[in-house]
């Protein structure tokens, strides 16, 4: 962490110089403020962003107790179509600092066999924690985010498999395939997590996250209306994936879908992780990409919003909630740095 922050300090001094050097930053459209009207940003210093600066804002006061959001704005030295493509095909698991253990694409109609990549989960304490939690899963009172019927699966699988890792791979392959099938089929509204005090419906969480910001929702109405978040549609996502990442020392497994839409001179992207097995209920990552000219070269202005629903946030109050937003900004920035580094590779 220290080296990262020393780097940030160094980067700031570079940015100060960049502000002087980069005079040739011109949006390819008439009014940047108009484009950014739905965001938390206005009158932005594009010169500073061209030098690498990431502008960030906490989501502020939102009307959803389990939700927390942040917005970011930055420039990538690649064209919007290149960034659009990278959003679909980059592998965050290649960046160890992100603690993403696996991230793999799925076919349009995945079956349990399509999750065989889970066998390649690394042997570390985080993954071991998930494997042990799966082996000890109590179907009557699941400690992981499952429906009652999903939790019952473990009973039959235990009788077939003694190896803990094989059991976890079998079990989660079926759970993830089921969740993906329900979501893509427009039937995710019935999916839930059994938790103490009641059930959580991930789809309802996603809707609540979208409701936290009317401007952003309006901006993404056309795209979201093509997703199963609105049950009437069953559009094919641009990418369907499953992943595993660390949450407080234990691996979580999830599956999500990315939808994209060209909207005027910009490209919109919505990454909806509609199922996560622990730690986080759901998350959404929105991006909008505009072309921008930097020193005569077409690059991409990226607006990004991260929206997360988690039980822990519900019990954050006052300053604690402020601090959580501030720390989330730092982590989102780490993800952005990793993503931008993809464009520096030969």
């Amino acid at each position: 962490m220290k080296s990262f922050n020393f780097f940030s300090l160094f980067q700031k001094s570079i940015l100060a110089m960049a502000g002087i050097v980069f005079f040739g930053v011109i949006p390819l459209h008439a009014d940047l403020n108009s484009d950014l009207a739905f965001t938390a940003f206005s009158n932005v210093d594009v010169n500073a962003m061209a030098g690498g600066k990431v502008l960030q804002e906490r989501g502020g006061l939102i009307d959803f107790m389990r939700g927390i959001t942040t917005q970011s704005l930055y420039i990538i030295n690649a064209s919007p179509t290149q960034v659009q493509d990278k959003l679909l095909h980059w592998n965050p698991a290649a960046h160890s600092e992100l603690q993403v253990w696996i991230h793999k694409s799925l076919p349009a109609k995945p079956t349990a066999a399509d999750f065989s990549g889970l066998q390649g989960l690394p042997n570390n304490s985080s993954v071991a924690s998930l494997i042990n939690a799966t082996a000890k899963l109590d179907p009557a009172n699941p400690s992981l985010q499952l429906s009652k019927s999903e939790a019952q699966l473990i009973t039959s699988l235990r009788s077939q498999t003694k190896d803990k890792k094989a059991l976890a791979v079998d079990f989660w392959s079926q759970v993830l395939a089921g969740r993906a099938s329900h979501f893509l089929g427009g039937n995710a509204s019935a999916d839930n997590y059994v938790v103490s005090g009641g059930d959580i419906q991930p789809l309802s969480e996603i809707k609540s996250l979208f409701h936290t910001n009317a401007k952003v929702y309006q901006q993404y109405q056309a795209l979201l209306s093509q997703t199963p978040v609105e049950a009437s549609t069953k559009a094919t996502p641009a990418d369907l994936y499953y992943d595993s990442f660390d949450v407080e020392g234990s691996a979580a497994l999830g599956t999500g879908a990315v939808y994209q839409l060209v909207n005027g001179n910009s490209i919109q992207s919505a990454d909806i992780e509609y199922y996560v097995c622990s730690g986080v209920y759901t998350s959404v990552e929105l991006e909008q990409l505009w072309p921008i000219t930097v020193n005569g070269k077409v690059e991409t202005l990226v607006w990004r919003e991260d929206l997360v629903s988690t039980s822990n946030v519900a019990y954050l109050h006052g300053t604690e909630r402020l601090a959580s937003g501030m720390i989330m900004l730092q982590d989102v920035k780490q993800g952005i740095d990793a993503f931008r580094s993809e464009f520096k590779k030969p």
Partner: protein
Amino acid sequence: MKSSFAPVLLAAAFCALMANGLQASDDGKDSLAPSVTPSPKIPISQEFTLESSYTGKSITKQGSAEIGGVDNINSHFNYVISPQIRDGVLLRFGVDSERNSFGLPPNAALPNTLQSINAIIGADVTPSDKILIRAELHPGIFSDFVNVTGNDFDMPVQIGGTYLWSKDFQIIVGMQIDLKSSYPIIAVPGFRWQIDNKWVLSAIPPKPQLQYQLNNSLTLYTGAEVLGGTYRVNNGFGSNHGHITPAANNLNGQIVDFTEIRIGAGFTWKFTPNMSLDISGGYMPYREFDFHEDHIGFDHHDTIFHNNIGDGAPYAAIGLSGSF
């Protein structure tokens, strides 16, 4: 482009949250019509702390003269209501009351009670995305609560700043301004280091701790604690305790800085998402009553009652805290 969602949870850990329980609710948002998004209300958070402890008898001296054993029952209550008036700005209003009730040997020139009851008026602000600042005024009565007068009024000021170096490491600086104390301005640094998923070094005065999270609801710790405060004794205190001559030792209406240092171990049990029970015990190696005149600035400590290191006593403490 998903990376990791740990930050929110790590934030929770950083903030010593009341988290981990779940509360399911249907937000009633089956439609995605954008027009239905309500304007956020002003969020109001509340927090309270209720603590009590007993420290056993420790042999206390004035200079080198032994006056006998002194014990202490400390009670503390704190309640704060905190409306978030806009993003990044929270006001803080509340009340704080603390009482030290001493068991004294006969004829000891010490107050049997040092007590405070004060309001809390303050704010939390975030001047940048990495800095949190809390400033609080604590106007109230700080005295032995015998013949309380306007002279017993005091208004300590506390200012704390946190720099979020990273999600695992934060730097803290705290400052107290109390013009009646013999140290009118005290500033202390600290830090919090999340060593790994289980261990946290919270080197933050006045309660530095090394913490180990046994599970989501139970945290074990070992560390130190400094209890203390600045109080005014009544105008007849010296006369009633034979301390009016010489003039330098006249304790009538004097200020006493009280300090009790503890080292020990304990646990915090988060028994609901919003409530925690804290139980600890250990040893109190040093306690001091430092009398000085009621004026601004450092004094030369005319009369100090204290115990020698090694003549301390065991203590036990219990606390209940919550936030809503």
